[in-house]
C-alpha cells in the first residue's frame, strides 16, 4: 500500500491505497474518510443503508482483512458520484453526490456552504440565518 490523494467534499484526503493497472485503489479503512460510507461484509454501508458488494463489480474489491482495497471508479459508480482519476499522480477527485445535490436543489433548500473571504476567513450561509440573502456570483475572469 502507498498513499493516494482523493479530493472530496472540499477536503484533500491523503489516505492509504494503491495504484494498480491504471486505476486508483483505496484501502477499505480509508473509504469512510473519503466517502462517509463503510465497506462491511454485507456491503457498502452508511447508517441503515447498505449497497451490496456485488454492485461494485466482481473485480472491484481485492485482498482481505487489513489489506482489503476497493477500486475507486467502481466505488464512485456504486455511490452514483462522478469521479476523475489520474493514476500517474495517485490523485482523484470525487464530485458531490448527485442525490445529495438533488435533495437540496429539487426540494428548494439552499445548500449549506462555507467559503473564505478575501482575507481567508471562513464565511457560511448559516452566518446569515433568519435573514433574506442575495447570493451574487461573478468572476474576475
Amino acid at each position: 500500500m502507498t498513499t493516494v490523494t482523493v479530493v472530496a467534499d472540499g477536503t484533500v484526503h491523503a489516505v492509504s491505497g494503491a495504484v494498480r493497472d491504471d486505476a486508483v485503489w483505496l484501502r477499505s479503512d480509508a473509504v469512510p474518510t473519503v466517502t462517509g460510507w463503510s465497506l462491511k461484509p454485507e456491503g457498502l454501508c452508511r447508517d441503515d443503508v447498505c449497497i451490496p458488494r456485488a454492485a461494485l463489480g466482481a473485480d472491484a474489491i481485492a485482498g482481505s482483512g487489513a489489506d482489503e482495497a476497493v477500486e475507486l471508479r467502481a466505488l464512485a459508480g456504486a455511490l452514483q458520484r462522478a469521479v476523475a482519476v489520474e493514476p500517474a499522480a495517485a490523485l482523484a477527485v470525487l464530485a458531490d453526490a448527485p442525490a445529495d445535490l438533488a435533495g437540496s436543489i429539487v426540494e428548494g433548500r439552499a445548500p449549506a456552504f462555507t467559503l473564505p473571504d478575501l482575507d481567508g476567513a471562513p464565511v457560511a450561509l448559516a452566518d446569515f440565518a433568519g435573514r433574506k440573502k442575495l447570493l451574487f456570483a461573478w468572476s474576475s475572469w
Partner: protein
Amino acid sequence: MLIDRDHAWAERYGVINVPTTIWVDEDDRIVRPPAIAPGDDKFIEFVGFSAEPHHAALRAWVRDGVAPMADAEIRARRSAPDARLQEARAERRLAMHLLRAGATDLGHAHLDRALALAPDDWTIQRGSLPVRGKDPFGQDFFDFYQRWEAAGRPGYEG
C-alpha cells in the same frame, strides 16, 4: 466577497454562468433559483435584457416581502444535476489540482476532458481560458460565445 476557487459553491447551486443571482429567504428556501442578473446595463447588448426589472423585484421582495416567483415557476426551474456535467466538474477540479502541483501535461489533458464534457458551461469554458494561456476577452471567448449563441443560449435563464 467570497472566493470559490474550486467551483464548489457553483457546483452545489448549479451555477454555469455569471453574473448569476440566487435569492434565499429567512428559512433558507430558494425563492429565486439561479438566474442571470447583471448589476447594470453596461453589457445589455450581450445580456439581452435590462437590469432594472431585477432591481425592482429585489426591492419589492426586501421591503414588502413580494415573492419574486410563483412556486410553480420555481419548481419548473429545479433540476437534478446532470451526470455528464458532474463528471466535467470533477475533471476540471482534478486538472486544477494537477496544474497547481506543476503537472502541466496531465493537468491540461484533464482540462480538455472537462471542456469536451461541458461545451456550454461558461464557468468551465470561459473560466479555463486564463490557465490555458488564452485571453478571456479574446477571440477564443468570442468563438465560444458565437457557438453558444448559435445553439440557442443553452442554460441561460434571466
